[in-house]
């Protein structure tokens, strides 16, 4: 089975802190994604990566950056956390195709 793991299930950070969310997949997938999930807004794509060291902006990249130094690992960085970044963050990976495999999510609260 494909497994996508995220470093934390719950995080509480203060405004202005730098936040790292880590995602690891074990299926040698080229493509990895970061989404945020908010009620009524669905899954919004923040950034994605189709290869090591490659990244592309999604629909809402402002305030975020990403890093992919190894194929299995994709990190989301909040350079200076703000309260409007309080959300559920979901990581996913895939080969070319319609199926993306999601991690369990990280619920981030910024106070």
């Amino acid at each position: 089975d494909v497994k996508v793991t995220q470093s934390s299930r719950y995080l509480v950070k203060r405004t202005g802190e730098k936040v790292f969310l880590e995602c690891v997949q074990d299926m040698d997938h080229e493509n990895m994604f970061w989404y945020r999930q908010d009620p009524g807004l669905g899954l919004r794509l923040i950034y994605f990566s189709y290869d090591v060291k490659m990244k592309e902006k999604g629909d809402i990249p402002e305030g975020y950056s990403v890093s992919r130094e190894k194929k299995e690992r994709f990190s989301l960085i909040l350079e200076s956390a703000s309260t409007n970044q309080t959300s559920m963050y979901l990581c996913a990976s895939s080969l070319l195709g319609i199926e993306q495999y999601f991690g369990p999510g990280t619920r981030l609260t910024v106070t």
Partner: protein
Amino acid sequence: QQQVKQSPQSLIVQKGGISIINCAYENTAFDYFPWYQQFPGKGPALLIAIRPDVSEKKEGRFTISFNKSAKQFSLHIMDSQPGDSATYFCAAWLSGSARQLTFGSGTQLTVLP
């Protein structure tokens, strides 16, 4: 911007009833239309998908109906069960696009016992 519009935002159905969730899209170049199911505390997982050259696809109690001319598709859950209570996302997939999937806004389904 490519969009997929989903309704309703929430749905309450009695056990044994039919749950219907609707989606509409704009880009006629989309190649595939999957539905994802998300249980509380879990990430979404692929449930069922349909190609635009097919009008209907059925897998067990789950059926996708597709209307290409109207640019609409819907998920029907027959004989809905409390275990079907979850959030459902429609999506659209564009081949050759690195981002791959565009998701709808989600429908929270509650099936009452």
